[in-house]
């Protein structure tokens, strides 16, 4: 049986490791795509949720090196592009939420269960406030806050349902990165 050379092993392992490290961003972009599927399950009555924020929250806390601010900016810009809204809106909102996570990481890592959902709600409110501020500045008037509140509530309700998906993706990151070396 021939022994595998270290150089070949590294060459084969590199894509796997890279894919593992890109999983958080890819999952967040996938959630942007799902949230912005141009199909309304409620006949347009309820706004689409900001699902990508759940992925940003999860990995900005658990693996901050895999969710840098540049990735958050990219996710926000893609959200703006797909939603049809003005660019920079959710990019700013997500970054505002990211700053809160970044500054309160130690505290946020200690909360579990319902506290986790409450903390996510806080981050979502900050992100929504950031987006609202930019939108009001763009349109030069105070916009109705009702639809944004509704989006915040829907996102928070859906967050616990997304947690198992994010856990599953996170386990795969560990597996891929470890298997690669």
């Amino acid at each position, binding site marked *: 049986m021939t022994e595998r050379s270290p150089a070949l092993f590294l060459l084969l392992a590199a894509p796997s490791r890279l894919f593992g490290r890109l999983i958080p961003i890819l999952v967040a972009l996938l959630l942007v795509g799902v949230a*912005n*599927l*141009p*199909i*309304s*399950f409620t*006949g*347009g*009555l*309820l*706004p*689409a949720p900001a699902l990508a924020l759940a992925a940003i929250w999860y990995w900005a806390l658990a693996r901050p090196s895999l969710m*840098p*601010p*540049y990735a*958050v*900016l990219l996710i*926000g*810009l893609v959200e*703006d*592009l*797909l*939603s*049809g*809204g*003005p*660019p*920079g*809106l959710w*990019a*700013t909102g997500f*970054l505002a939420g*990211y*700053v809160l996570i*970044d*500054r*309160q*990481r*130690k*505290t946020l890592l*200690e*909360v579990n269960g319902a506290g986790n959902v409450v903390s996510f709600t806080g981050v979502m409110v900050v992100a929504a406030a950031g*987006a609202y501020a*930019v*939108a009001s*500045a*763009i*349109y030069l008037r105070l*916009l*109705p806050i*009702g*639809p*944004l509140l*509704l*989006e915040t509530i829907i996102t928070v309700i859906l967050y616990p349902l997304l947690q198992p998906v994010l856990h599953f993706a996170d386990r795969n990151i560990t597996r891929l990165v470890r298997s690669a070396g």
Partner: protein
Amino acid sequence: MVRAGWKWTRGRGTKQLPILICAVIAVGAAVAGRTHAVFFDSARAALSDWSAPALSGLRAPLTAMQSWTGSVAGIFTVYSENAQLRQENAELHKWQQVALSLEDRLRRYQQLLNAVPDEKTPFITARVIGESSRPFVRTMILNAGTANQVRKGQAVVDQRGLLGRIYVSGENTSWVILLTDLNSRVPVVIEPSHRRAILAGDNTPAPQLELDVGEGPIRSGDRVLSTGDGGLLPPDLPVGVVTGNGENARVVLFATAASADAVNILDYRVPEPPVPADPATAVPAKTSSSATSPAVAAVPPDSRESPPEEPDR
């Protein structure tokens, strides 16, 4: 055990720099989106063109499911709806006779006055392949684009009335800014007072009426029609009915995106201004109309290609 507390930890300068750079880029994108909207609109159009087959495929089963669940839900209300429809049908028969009689009378008056008949607006029929309902934007995606002569600014209607206007047009898809969207501003006239107003979307289901010209009273139930002012939309398209009174009036729209499936994109063009007579062949006419001709001549022949009011995107 670590004590839990809500502390604002101050990051070091080098750690804060990437966040600061990203924040500047995000705000810069917001500003650029205002000043260079074409770039972002082109990206959106390209994206919707690329994903159009997938969107059509995704929407078909959902529409079927919505239709099925609607049918099931309808079973429980079929009796009361049937009784209501019978009553409405009887009333509509009466109004149909009145309308036919008035249509005939109008035709005779037009013949007597030798009036210019209304031109029929050509249209393109398209299917809705997507809709977006976000806090700051309400749009719809159609499966027709520049390849089908769809242009920015064209009116989109269904069988009930005006839905919105095209604001981004890709090769095979186009995005519609709905009347309920924050950016939507449409000139309308309120009947029977003939008062003019701007219908301003604010992301609520019933857009606001910003009263503009005229003195007549506005009452709940008054009809709202498009005016054609600005040459962008054809006049007399049904829009909705007024709810509320006076300055707080809003409009309940006839057509809503949620129930729109196939729509018409109206290729409306402002009628051509009269061509000034050829000076070589009509010298007497030139001298007699010299006082009025400059106003007509000031309208460029291709003015219809650049409508004065564009969607604010």
